[in-house]
């Protein structure tokens, strides 16, 4: 049954493929670390190169898959060090990763996130090896109604993030949803909020949104501080650089839970690392944030999204390899890459192309080990980046991001849009809004609307379809529970705890 895997390790362990897996891991880490260049651009840049070099299909796929998984590792770096997410899956990583860096724990934070990424990816690759065909059948059962319920659950989980100012979290999320409505309406093709600018027809690009909201607003804040001669939120000196075993053990359940969440969400077609890390983070906050320290530099709050985004990357290979349907934007490009080699991924691929499939899965195992070995020692090196003054570091990173975005759009409009969003993000921050709910609203809102409308077109307008399958009913109940339980738990505590103290 696992012949393909044994055969695959034979393929992946040849010197050429080992070298390519390493190259992919290294480049992927770099692409992920640079905001504005994510796995999608990385693969798009290297795909023609792999083809021109005349690499065989399995070697090309090993290189490109290495870039994909590597960038999920790399994305965390600028999240932790600069509070600017390196790619879509690393937005939640900023929430606890950057506060840790501010406390002088950048090294351990990078180390811990590397370990979490490794475990997340390992769990998911094992899941991919054992259950791929089975999971594929379940994944397609997830229809528009179920996706809508999943998004409701994700929004409900966000109430965990509300913290000090629930109203501002809510407003932030709604602003994100509003921004997601810009562009051609996915159902009817009607233009919404595009002001006759064709550049807005496709909606606002995720990268443009992230770089504007996080990086540009950060620069504006720094400018303000500089002109007012304030002390900018200074960084604590860099302490130790290695993560301690006890810290990893402290997070072990958070990592394992999030790995499973990430893998399952990765397997679903149409959702990727951003949704996976958001659900993992908010779930973990519900379960293990006893002292309300998530968001202030809790190790578990860092480990959860990092385990989840790597797990979802590996999970998204399941529908691609078994059904020929991409599980994420990046696997959509990998599918395209395979087509250049006259390989059409699909239900027959395990049987017809065992060398390619086995080689790919084996290389995921090998690449993952390489990434851990690469990233653990690098944690100390990258932590030193913080010694570069921020007034130099953040604008430099922003320039790289600008160039990356321009390369992808060949159009200045994207840059201008990024600046406008930057001003918007700056104002939000000045008024004490957190940016993560805005981004989540943006990502989840679009998916939620599309799937609601699809579900209603299927049923001909009957909302009953949203509660028809046991999958969606389960999600609705879970959504209700995550909102209601803490509310009542709080009341019960208030009622009984003073009594307990008095007695």
């Amino acid at each position, binding site marked *: 049954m696992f012949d393909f895997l044994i055969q695959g390790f034979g393929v992946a362990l040849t010197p050429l493929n080992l070298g390519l897996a390493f190259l992919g891991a290294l480049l992927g880490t770099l692409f992920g670390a640079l905001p504005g260049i994510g796995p*999608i651009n990385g*693969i*798009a840049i290297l795909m*023609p190169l792999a*083809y*021109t070099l005349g690499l065989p299909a399995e070697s090309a796929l090993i290189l490109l898959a290495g870039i994909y998984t590597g960038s999920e590792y790399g994305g965390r770096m600028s999240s932790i060090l600069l509070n600017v997410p390196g790619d879509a899956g690393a937005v939640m990583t900023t929430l606890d990763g950057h506060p840790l860096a501010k406390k002088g724990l950048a090294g351990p934070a990078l180390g811990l996130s590397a370990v979490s990424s490794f475990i997340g990816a390992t769990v998911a690759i094992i899941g991919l090896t054992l259950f791929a065909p089975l999971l594929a059948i379940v*994944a*397609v*059962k997830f*229809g*528009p109604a179920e996706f809508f319920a999943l998004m409701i659950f994700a929004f409900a989980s966000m109430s965990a993030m509300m913290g000090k100012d629930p109203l501002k979290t809510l407003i932030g999320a709604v602003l994100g949803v509003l921004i997601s409505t810009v562009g*051609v*309406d*996915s159902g*009817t*093709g009607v233009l919404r909020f595009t002001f006759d600018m*064709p*550049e807005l*027809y*496709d909606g606002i690009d995720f990268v443009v949104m992230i770089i504007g909201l996080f990086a540009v607003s950060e*620069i504006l804040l*720094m*400018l303000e501080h*500089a*002109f007012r*001669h304030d002390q900018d939120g200074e960084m604590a000196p860099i302490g130790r650089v290695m993560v301690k075993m006890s810290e990893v053990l402290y997070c072990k359940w958070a990592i394992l839970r999030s790995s499973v969440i990430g893998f399952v969400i990765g397997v679903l*077609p149409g959702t990727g690392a951003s949704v996976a890390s958001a659900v993992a983070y908010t779930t973990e906050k519900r379960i293990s944030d006893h002292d309300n320290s998530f968001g202030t530099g809790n190790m578990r709050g860092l480990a959860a999204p990092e385990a989840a985004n790597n797990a979802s990357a590996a999970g998204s290979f399941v*529908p691609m390899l078994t*059904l*020929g*349907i*991409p599980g994420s*934007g990046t696997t*959509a*490009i990998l*599918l*395209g890459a395979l087509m*250049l080699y*006259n390989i*059409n*991924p*699909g*239900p*027959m691929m395990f049987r017809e192309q065992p060398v390619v499939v086995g080689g790919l899965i084996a290389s995921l195992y090998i690449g993952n080990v390489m990434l851990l070995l690469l990233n653990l020692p690098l944690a100390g090196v990258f932590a030193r980046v913080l010694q570069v*003054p921020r*007034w130099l570091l953040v*604008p430099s990173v*922003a*320039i790289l991001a*600008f160039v990356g975005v321009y390369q*992808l*759009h*060949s*159009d200045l*409009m994207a*840059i201008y849009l990024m600046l406008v969003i930057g001003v918007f993000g700056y104002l939000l921050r000045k008024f004490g809004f957190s940016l993560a709910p805005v981004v989540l609203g943006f990502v989840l809102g679009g998916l939620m609307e599309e799937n609601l409308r*699809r579900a209603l*077109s*299927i049923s*001909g307008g009957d909302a009953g379809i949203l509660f028809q399958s046991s999958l969606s009913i389960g999600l609705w109940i879970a959504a209700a529970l995550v909102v209601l339980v803490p509310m009542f738990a709080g009341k019960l505590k208030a009622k009984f705890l003073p009594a307990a103290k008095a007695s």
Partner: protein
Amino acid sequence: MPQNHMSKAKGLQRWLVAAVTGGALLAGAVQAQAKPPECIAPAKPGGGYDLTCRLAANGLQEAKLIDEPMMVSYMPGGIGAVAYNHVTGVRDDDPNLIVAASTGAALNLALGKFGIKHKVDDVRWVGALGVDYGAVVVRKDAPWNNLDELMKALKKDPSSVVIGAGGTVGSQDWMKAALMAKADEVDPRKLRYVSFEGGGEALAALLGEHIQVFTGDLAELKPQLDSGEIRILAALSEERMGGPYADIPTAKEQGYDVEWPIWRGYYMGPDVSDEEYQAWADRLKALSETESFAKLREGRGLFPMAKFGEDFHQYVKDQVADFQQLSKEVGLTQ
């Protein structure tokens, strides 16, 4: 004085922040005029237009019809309108630039989605390298054995069948369904149509029993066809295709006169000289006749199509006129 020193450093710092940020704008404003041949994919990386560009780039290079490797760049936005603007306005005479296009672009032009001022004649259509055809797809356990049974069910109650595809109402994916309905005198607006983000998601919805009919493209369904999970009730081609598709009847032979070719081709700027335009048309024609390209095209899931130069330009012009007529008939425009 440390105080003074501090403020000087801050003063320097504020200008550095401003300078570095300003530099970013300059970096963006520098527009490189590329010398090597270039193909613009008017979309994000990885989609159909990307592959259309790569088909030309890889093919031309393998056949040694270009001296330098062709660069593929991306210009997403406005379902292709941003690139159309760019080529009609900015790089209108660049002899080294081709832009990927398809039936979808012709439909958008016909519907005025590229802006009312943009017409099909605003660019020079230089050639197509391949074509796919629409297909009416159902699950293997679907209750309909042929197109006629499905159409009878639709005629009886248009809302009893859930149809899905990878584009919005008014997209070329929707047009396939609308034209089928029209051929049977069913009002296309009465169809229960669900739009997905790309054919892959629509296919997943078909396999997951969320929709019953998927109007997709023939060749891209080969893997699922091989595994027997789907059945193709009709190919929307002029005549039956060969090879693995030989058993699939056309809609026409089942009594419904609907054809939907999805060509993959290229256009150039309006002010490219006749010589340069002809040179590209000849180059693409030469490419389409090589053996290595035939393999590449087949791998990409495309059937041969041989229309180049003025011939192709006229073809696209006629098609846009047809689409304008059709869109009136199916109730998209007045």
